[in-house]
């Protein structure tokens, strides 16, 4: 630690993260303060204040975690895994429900969403499993243990039900296995199998409300005030932003409450409406830059454990970016997945900070002798 850590510290990634988080804070402010927006007005929004609190404490936590050698976590892999399962089981029985799903544990001043933390935990424990010396992924049976490892928490989340987050688990697993050396043949077969399973799952495992919610995005006009409402209004918001946007705090879809859950899942609609295509494009490119930077850390990591962590985190960002932004413009179904770092919400933000802390730690503890 010490000198070497600071010398290797990825300040570019850190700056990018801080910039995106502060930008998200501004959007949370815009989507929760109505009328003439002033600095005082922003600070009167409890959402804005809380998000500010998450950002300050989250960045602090991230920085602390980044200074600790990530390899320390390996030792606690089993307790973390069990703790993860315990939280997920607890939420099944004690969780607060909203929108037909039980996802939150009331924690007094905020609601903990264990499935958000579960993403980070599974990245740590799966990476631990796959980074074991001498593990090979050449044979079919080699895939069994990692799959079983992920399947257990994933099924519980699916039962909440939280289809979106369980799909994030799939993205994490496939990405890490891919980098860990899974064979192309296996990947191909599994992809086909996954596709087949999806169809089966759609037909037999999903509740009706999940089915209609999944497919309504193809034709939101069949229920424009019910299930299609948020999809339509979101697309109207994004589209009406045109090239330059209506101006920050000036979006009428946003300010007049036509946009639903705009500070959380549909925060990107506010961005699209108020800052237009130019704003959206700049944001997406900065976001892409962050993902590339995380994957760059994966390349220079000193060991596979660190590498897999970075790959898992990059997978979460990429997948959620696609599904969340895609949802606001009707090219993806509405699955209730937030936009990491930008959407309002404590659990999501803290989990994201934890994950990015690990990535920064991997960067800080890379083996410079290799280069």
């Amino acid at each position, binding site marked *: 630690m010490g000198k070497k850590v600071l010398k290797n510290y990825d300040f570019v990634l850190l700056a990018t993260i801080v910039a995106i988080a502060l930008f998200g804070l501004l959007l949370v402010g815009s989507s929760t303060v109505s009328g003439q927006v002033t600095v005082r007005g922003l600070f009167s929004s409890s959402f804005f204040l809380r998000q500010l609190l998450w950002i300050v404490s989250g960045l602090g936590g991230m920085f602390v975690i980044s200074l600790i050698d990530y390899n320390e976590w390996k030792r606690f892999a089993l307790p973390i895994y069990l703790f993860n399962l315990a939280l997920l089981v607890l939420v099944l029985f004690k969780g607060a429900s909203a929108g037909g799903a039980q996802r939150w544990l009331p924690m007094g001043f905020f609601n903990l969403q264990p499935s958000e933390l579960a993403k980070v935990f599974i990245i740590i424990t799966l990476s631990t499993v796959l980074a074991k010396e001498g593990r090979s992924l050449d044979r079919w049976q080699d895939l069994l243990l990692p799959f079983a490892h992920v399947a257990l928490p994933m099924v519980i989340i699916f039962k909440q039900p939280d289809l979106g987050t369980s799909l994030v688990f799939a993205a994490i697993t496939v990405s890490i296995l891919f*980098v860990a050396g899974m064979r192309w043949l296996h990947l191909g077969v599994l992809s086909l199998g996954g596709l087949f399973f999806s169809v089966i799952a759609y037909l037999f495992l999903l509740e009706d409300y999940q089915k209609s919610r999944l497919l309504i995005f193809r034709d939101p006009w069949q229920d424009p005030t019910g299930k299609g409402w948020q999809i339509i209004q979101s697309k*109207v918001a994004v589209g009406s932003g045109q090239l330059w946007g209506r101006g920050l705090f000036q979006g*009428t879809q946003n300010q*007049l409450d036509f946009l639903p859950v705009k500070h959380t899942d549909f925060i990107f609609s506010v961005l699209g409406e108020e800052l237009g295509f130019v704003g959206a494009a700049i944001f*997406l*490119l900065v976001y*892409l830059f962050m993902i590339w930077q995380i994957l760059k850390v994966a390349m220079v990591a000193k060991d596979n454990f660190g590498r897999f962590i970075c790959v898992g985190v990059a997978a979460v960002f990429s997948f959620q970016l696609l599904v969340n932004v*895609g949802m606001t413009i009707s090219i993806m179904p509405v699955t209730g997945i937030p936009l990491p770092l930008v959407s309002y919400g404590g659990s999501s933000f803290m989990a994201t900070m934890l994950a990015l802390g690990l990535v920064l730690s991997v960067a800080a503890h890379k083996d410079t002798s290799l280069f």
Partner: protein
Amino acid sequence: MKQMQLRISILRLVAALIVAVLLYNLFQIQVIEGEEWADIADNNRFRHLVQRAPRGRIFTADGVELASNIPCYEVALAFEQDPAKRQQAIDVLADLLGMEAEEIQNRLKKNHRRFEPTVVARNVDFATVALLEENKHRIPGLVVQINPQRVYPQKTLLAHVLGRLIDGKGVEGLERQWEDYLRGENGFSVIQVNAANSPVGEPVNSKPAVPGKDLHLTVDAGLQQVAQESLHRVLRKLREERKLEDAWTGAVVVIDPNSGRILAMASEPSFDNNVKYNYAWPDELPQKDTVRTYRDRVLNWRKPVGSTFKMITGLAALETGHVTATEKIRDTGSARISGQMVRNYGSAAYGYIDLPRALEVSSNIYFGTLGSRMGHELIYEYIDKFGMSGTASGESREGVMKNAGFTDIALDEQMYSLDYYRQMMKHGGSFYPGHTVQMSYGQLNEFTVMQMANYVSMLANGGIHYKPYLVEKITAADGEVVEFFEPVILAQHEFDPKALDVVRKGMRLAASGGQFRNLPFAVAGKTGTSEEAGKENHAWWVGYAPYDNPEIAIVVFLEHGGLGLRAAEVARDIIDYYFGLK
């Protein structure tokens, strides 16, 4: 190790691909389709509300309100994006208003200005509005606006002339012709609403309504009342006492011969203008041809005018030297003139008579003789001088449309005279000298009552064709006079005063007895009885009073009224009222 680097690079490309897909779609929606989505966003947030301008009122010369407005509720639907919500609103509205859902649907479809709510029902009473307000939550987009509603407080008074509205727009009568003045300008306010359909902030834009302008007519309400009542009473009497079963219709015009101001114009049967097209049909009326029966007999009807035409024949013959004031023609009661068998009423023979006497006794022999001397061209020349020429197709002999010159009501709601000669020529019929003879005592050609009023006025004033008019003054809501119409001279003919005097003398003689006894002044007049094949004759009376200093010209027409002198009773009622004799 190398393999891992490669695979991480592949993941980077996947991430880049994701961003590329998103950017492509965003470009499509925001840049290419952006304007359409912005329109939809505006539709979301703006409501255009119309503030209806009260329509201009119509007054008689003495200030009686003929057309007015009362506040009424109008139910409208604001455009609702969501078809399901829209359908719900339509269904609930249809139910509560007792309308067909389809009808509401059609109205919505016809509204191409989505910012403005579509009017679903007008004239909704307060109780229904209260019911709608209670069910407001079930009717997304409901807008209740106050819409001034047209009423005609005097009901039947001048009903034929006032006209009517469809959807607030004049489509007939004065309401149509003066639409531009009466309509006023609707105001509007544009408000911003939020997702819950509640107004947010001050109206974005608004303009107050400008009320329509008021028309002030030349008609005197009292005289109009007398004309209508008298006409009605006399026709009823003819049916009941004379058994003239077809005597239901007729017309009266009273006009100022020195200006063309119309003082009264009545048509029978009349109707309550407020319920015009729900006619309460008189049970005893045999024919059920509503439109024909209620048609305005003053402007939109024409008939042969019988002996009331004889002043034209007389004046033409005197001025052109085909007869002199002193020449006497032998009247044998019946005679063959130019091959045409001519008979007086009752075949009465009057011996040798001059022109005034011929008018007094209404000799067909005398005027038939003048006609055969002059020929039809000369007669038509004089018809033209009195502004009464026209053809079956409505064209004048010079190719210019001519009617009485009255333009306060659209020309297509008025009839033109029928030129028998032109009609025969046009349709390849034959025209014989005998036709000229019949024409000279008022058969064959057909004229409107308004044209007859003109003609009598010109006899009274010496040949000035004043444009007959009804609208004298237009005022804005604040009372300011916007337009004032002075009398207009359409044509001025220098009739030979001596010839005119001879004709007038005949008219005085013709109106010296009967209905016109016991008057403090002399009256000029002429009865007429015209024939219609297979039907009862039409009764006419034309004239002016006082004889020495004409103040009013009168035309009375009783369709199938039998004898001309019966029309004189209506004229007497008018003279009595106008000169305050009763």
